């Protein structure tokens, strides 16, 4: 799975490549995906085979690692509807595949989940889960838990009603579906549901916290990450922003958007919920990763999850009860004054609330958050969390928008800008126990790649102008870097090759929301373009070009 394990630590226990020898790291082989859009997928390695999913048209490649140069074992072309490209909000990305029991599972932009025979690439089943004519797409990487493939939708910018669905691994039949909005029976909230905070308890809040019928087009999609605790038998996933962005068209808490759910994977039944951003005004989706760790808090062992939210706060949440243990900003934030631990709700800065026809300036973080989808890593050796993130602010003006199915339902004009200090990206090593940064690296461009930590005392990540970097896990010192062919927005992985040696892999190919200006050839003369990202990324076109290449690195053979 892209997250390495159910706890989603993105930590590799391999240590052959370490601080002393990483300077010798060299290219072992490369592979062109032939698709020049944002490469957000994690290559996954099982049984000496590497599996890659490309952005639309979502081609799956299996590479035979046992042979010199890792030749193609098979490829599979799902041929998604070309029109699906027109309802994908932020480049036509895909975040990767999942493997279980001889099968490879992945999603297509036009809303299909497909199971392939991992050995042959033969299609085993294909299940259609949504409709592009209502604006639904799928971009997330599925997760397999207890014989079920878990899949969620994208489309929070098109008034999609979000859901998380479980499919039977053998048949592809839908076992359950949990919507993010609507009556409790649709959200799979029943008698076993008990949230920690009062405002997250009540009947049919997914209807009552909206204007009449607005929940039907209210967003809350599930395009991010899922973690699983086998002992508690709970899956954890968050929902995305409410629709439209213009908050004045949807008074109320807008449940259950921007909400962390703990659910029973067998039935989908919700055990508890924690709404990060009630009545979100800034597009602060709650879909970022949850890393499950056991740590000592005030002398007592607690089972917690770590979640760096788009709203700029690092939530440490008790994963049994849903209580927020702590929530501290991991970068510059002014839209929220603090997270009230008594209510679980943010205390909003009244100066940064959005208004119809008024430009509210310098809201930090910007719509894509202090951090977007790109997942952090956690090293049990250092006890630190490694967060690749942004340092961006924005000017925001609400505009009235009408719902037209299959078209954007946003209602805001946004211009993103560099945050305090001018560096648009930052890499932060965070101590979750102390609740503070241990070291940070300023990056000129926003960080849109994931991170990976290893037992070799290294942390890997990439930059949007194409550098793949290894830094010291304890100090942040740059130990090695390599310039790939295009900007990096992917997920680094490490694996043991058939020869017993450690390899590190990354897909290079710029795009995604922040890189759409390059992958979509957008015009930097309109700073509102790409949902406000065009202006702040105007220089990216001069720094990198579209690409789509896998790079695999290893130490020289002795």
């Amino acid at each position, binding site marked *: 799975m892209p997250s390495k394990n159910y706890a989603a630590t993105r930590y590799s226990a391999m240590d052959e490549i370490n601080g002393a020898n990483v300077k010798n790291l060299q290219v072992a082989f490369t592979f062109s995906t032939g698709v020049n859009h944002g490469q957000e997928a994690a290559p996954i390695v099982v049984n000496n085979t590497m599996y890659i999913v490309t952005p639309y048209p979502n081609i799956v490649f299996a590479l035979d690692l046992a042979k010199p140069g890792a030749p193609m074992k098979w490829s599979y072309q799902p041929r998604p509807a*070309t*029109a*699906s*490209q*027109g*309802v*994908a*909000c*932020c480049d036509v990305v895909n975040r990767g595949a999942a493997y279980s029991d001889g099968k490879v599972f992945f999603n297509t932009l036009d809303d299909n989940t497909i199971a392939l025979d991992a050995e042959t690439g033969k299609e085993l089943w294909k299940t259609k889960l949504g409709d592009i004519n209502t604006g639904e797409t799928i971009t997330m990487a599925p997760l397999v838990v207890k014989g079920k493939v878990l899949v969620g939708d994208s489309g929070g*910018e098109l008034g999609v009603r979000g859901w998380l669905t479980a499919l039977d691994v053998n048949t592809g039949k839908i076992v359950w579906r949990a919507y993010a909005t609507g009556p409790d029976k649709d959200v799979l909230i029943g008698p076993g549901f008990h949230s920690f905070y009062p405002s997250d308890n009540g009947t049919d809040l997914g209807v009552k916290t909206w204007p009449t019928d607005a929940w039907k087009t209210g967003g809350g999609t599930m395009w991010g990450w899922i973690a699983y605790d086998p002992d508690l038998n709970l899956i954890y996933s968050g929902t995305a922003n409410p629709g439209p962005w213009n908050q004045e068209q949807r008074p109320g808490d807008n449940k259950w958007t921007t909400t962390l759910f703990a659910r029973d994977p067998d039935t989908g039944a919700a055990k508890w919920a924690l709404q990060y951003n009630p009545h979100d005004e800034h597009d602060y989706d709650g879909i970022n990763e949850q890393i499950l760790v056991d740590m000592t808090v005030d002398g007592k062992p607690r089972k917690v999850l770590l979640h760096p939210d788009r709203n700029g706060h690092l939530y440490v949440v008790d994963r049994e009860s849903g209580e927020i243990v702590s929530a501290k900003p991991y970068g*510059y934030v*002014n839209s929220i004054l603090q997270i009230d631990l008594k209510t679980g709700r943010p205390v909003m800065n009244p100066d940064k609330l959005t208004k119809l026809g008024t430009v509210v300036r*310098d809201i*930090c973080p910007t719509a894509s958050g202090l951090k977007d989808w790109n997942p952090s890593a956690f090293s049990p050796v250092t006890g630190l969390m490694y967060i690749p993130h942004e340092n961006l*602010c924005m000017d925001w003006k609400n*505009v*009235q*928008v*009408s719902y*037209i199915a*299959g*078209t*954007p*339902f*946003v209602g805001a004009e946004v*211009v*993103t*800008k*560099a*945050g*305090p*200090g*001018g560096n648009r990206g930052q890499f932060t090593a965070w101590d979750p126990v102390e609740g503070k940064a241990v070291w940070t690296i300023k990056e000129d461009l926003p960080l849109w790649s994931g991170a990976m930590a290893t037992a070799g005392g290294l942390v890997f990540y990439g930059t949007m102008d194409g550098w793949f970097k290894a830094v010291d896990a304890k100090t942040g010192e740059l130990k090695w870097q390599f310039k790939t062919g295009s900007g990096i927005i992917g997920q680094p992985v490490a694996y043991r090759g058939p020869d017993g040696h450690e390899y590190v892999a990354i897909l290079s190919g710029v795009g995604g929301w922040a890189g*759409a200006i390059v992958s*979509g*050839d*957008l*015009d*930097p*003369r*309109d*700073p*509102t*373009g*790409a*949902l406000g990202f*065009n*202006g*702040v990324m*105007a220089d990216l076109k001069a720094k990198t070009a579209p690409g789509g290449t896998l790079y695999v690195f290893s130490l020289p053979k002795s």
Partner: protein
Amino acid sequence: MSSPCRNPERRVDTLRLPAIVLVTWLAIGANEASAQHAPPAPDADRGPNAVSVSGLFPGGSAPPPPDPIGQRFEGNKEAIADGKELFGQMNCSGCHFNGGGGMGPALMSGHWRYGGQIDQIYSSIAQGRPNGMPSWQGSLVPSMIWELAAYVKSLPETAPASPTVVPGTDIKP
């Protein structure tokens, strides 16, 4: 949120309109009756007669002549203003923004995937295009599509010469 429709050529057969567009049209066209201009003939009640999206014409054949309706809309300030309003109301701006593009391609760059003549733009809006452009011919009447095409056609001409540099925030770290 809306101003009166400026273009006297806006001819809408309300029976043909889906409800959602009718609501929008009633909102923006409420004062249209007060427009005193006489409509020039012919009415903008149809799309272009013939459109070619290719620049190749085998055997020495010629591209179709520009449609006279399109010629009247092109550069027409009223039509462009009405088209701009529709561009927001129909959520075109949600994909193309103010011409810089996002989910959809940039429209201010002067590079046209499917042709930059007004009748070609009309056809792209009406028919849709395979890589994600929706087809609007079932939702909008021809005069509205002509207005949108007039606005889109005007975007490269009104675009700034150089990229807009967005200054960083003044907030100190």
